[in-house]
């Protein structure tokens, strides 16, 4: 479904590369976790996979289409939930969703039924006419999520969808993702919350300093490395305790 080979990416000449030789394969139906500390290169990798940013070296494919050569062609396959809230602050949740739905080319009545389904499901039925800038972080994240999945893509790519939200919001978001994944949608998501990834993901990759340092099923990876009892132990063992910039 998504395949990445030997990807290199440098933002500025003379600086350390954001990605140096990334290889990754994500299968259809996977719930794939891309885990790594701050500045590891998660967002960079995702923006290349989404055809939003070019790479210096390497190849990347989505559904057999060359992402780097035809970035426009792959955009119909996925929905992105960006790391930063990507909504119009002075529009209401409903107006935002309607607008983005229209931009996806979804017909008006389909948008209406989707919005009527998702807003209550995400606990926002009482706030649908409230402007986004009056929302709490958790509410914004939930609308941000809906905006990325409204058009029912076959791949959902989420960049830290649960950052900065309370437990209730986080549980709701993750449950929703689990449900969507169980219906066959591929989910790719990044996080530095490890226990959440351990529960959810059938596959994970640990990325640090632009390199994938481990990839596989969470349970297997934990078992391989002694004496690790959970993903957090494994993570610290692999990436060390030094602080990241």
């Amino acid at each position, binding site marked *: 479904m998504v395949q990445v080979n030997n990807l290199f990416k440098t933002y500025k000449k003379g600086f350390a590369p954001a990605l140096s030789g990334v290889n990754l394969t994500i299968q259809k139906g996977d719930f794939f976790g891309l885990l790594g500390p701050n500045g590891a290169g998660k967002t960079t990798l995702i923006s290349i996979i989404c055809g*939003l940013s*070019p790479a210096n070296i390497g190849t990347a494919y989505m559904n057999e289409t060359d992402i780097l050569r035809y970035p426009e062609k792959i955009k119909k396959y996925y929905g992105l939930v960006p790391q930063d*809230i*990507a909504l119009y*602050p*002075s529009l209401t949740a409903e107006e935002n969703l309607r*607008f983005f739905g229209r*931009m996806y080319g979804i017909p008006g009545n389909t948008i209406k039924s989707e919005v009527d389904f998702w807003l209550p499901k995400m606990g926002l039925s009482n706030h649908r006419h409230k402007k986004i800038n009056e929302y709490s972080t958790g509410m914004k994240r939930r609308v941000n999520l809906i*905006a990325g999945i409204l058009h029912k893509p076959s791949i959902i790519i989420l960049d830290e969808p649960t950052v900065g939200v309370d437990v209730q919001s986080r549980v709701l978001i993750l449950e929703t993702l689990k449900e969507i994944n169980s219906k066959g949608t591929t989910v790719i998501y990044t996080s530095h919350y490890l226990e959440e990834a351990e529960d959810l993901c059938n596959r994970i990759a640990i990325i640090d300093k632009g390199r994938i340092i481990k990839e596989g099923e969470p349970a297997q990876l934990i078992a391989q490395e002694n004496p690790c009892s959970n993903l957090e132990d494994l993570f610290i063992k692999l990436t060390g305790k030094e602080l990241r910039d």
Partner: protein
Amino acid sequence: MRVFFAIYKELLILIRDKAGLAILFLMPLTMIIIMALIQDGPFRDYQQAEIKVIFLDQDGDECGKAISQGLNQAGIFKITQAEYSKYDLNNIREEVNKGTYKVGVVVPPGTSLMLQTHISRDISRAFGELTNGPSEDIKDSLHAAIQVIYDPALQASFKKSVQLALDKILDGYQASQSIKVISQHLSQYFPNGNQFNIDTRRFIQLDQKTAVPELQGLSLNSVQHNVPAWTIFGIFFIVLPLAGSIIKEREDGSTLRLRTIPGTSLVVMIGKVLAYLLITLAQFVLMMLAGIFLMPHLGLPALEIGGNLSALLLAVVSIGLAATGLGVLLGTVFKTHQQSSTFAAVSIVILAAIGGIWIPVFVMPEILRKMSVISPLGWSMETFNNLFLRGAGVEEILPEISALTGFFGAMLIMAYFYNKFKVRS
């Protein structure tokens, strides 16, 4: 189709930005009112040129009356008659020096008598009634001068018009007096009582017209300059909110989301341009209504917008496009709202100044007049002047319209390549 939703979204955001709306609509409206009132006086000075004249008639005879009447009829002087018993040449000089009057005119005593004597003598001699030459004492008295005193600050052109008016009056008066005396003499040669009444009216008249017949009597006044000028300024001010909206969309991350939707960035940008174009049209209509209906309530003349509405619409759309083009480029190039606002505000004020928004181009010094050709606000002003004052149609405003739309195209192309270059790196 999607573009309509993009326009709708843009307008929705704009309508909720009350401060932005105030800048777009109230600022130019306020500027129109203030500037039209402030410049009403100076424009009158230029156009209607009522020169205040104090007039002292020490002659108290026909010549003095003729001059007074002639100056009144000239229509460009506001005459105050100085009382004979209270004023002399020195008082008049003081009055002008104080600045109360721009010009003082004094007809000295005996002017009429001098002229009469001179004419009678010359004509008598011509008819052979006088054989001797004039005696010396009469020769001395043949000189009389009307005293004209100017305010030192009076412009040369005004002095010239005072001089021309007086010359005309004196020439005419002397000629008519001569004819009168000649008629009297001729009558003597026809004893059957025939009176010679030679008509002294002028038979060759001046027929004066403006180059455009419909605009007869309309000349540039404060309203006619300031309403279009500040409308243009207001239209170009949409650069600020437009650039701001592009930057904000990028900061909010909506731009990123839109880039993930196939073929949408362009649609949203077109929607933005069209939405702001609609705003400029609304601004234009509001300002024209203010010019036509509000100005008369302020004691100013109503705005004349010429008769060619389709040419006018074309002009407004071109001006709106030029403004949105600049907004798109600034929104693309600048990173923060602050940077783009400062740059936009300063550059629009400067382009307005050299484009003849603050004061008309024709009163600016030569060097600035030459620079005005680089200002899109100057092209816009020229377009409106052509439409409103010269009765132009589409054909006549084509050069300015092409420049404005060309400017729009150039801005978009630059923004496109800047974006492309930025994404690549």
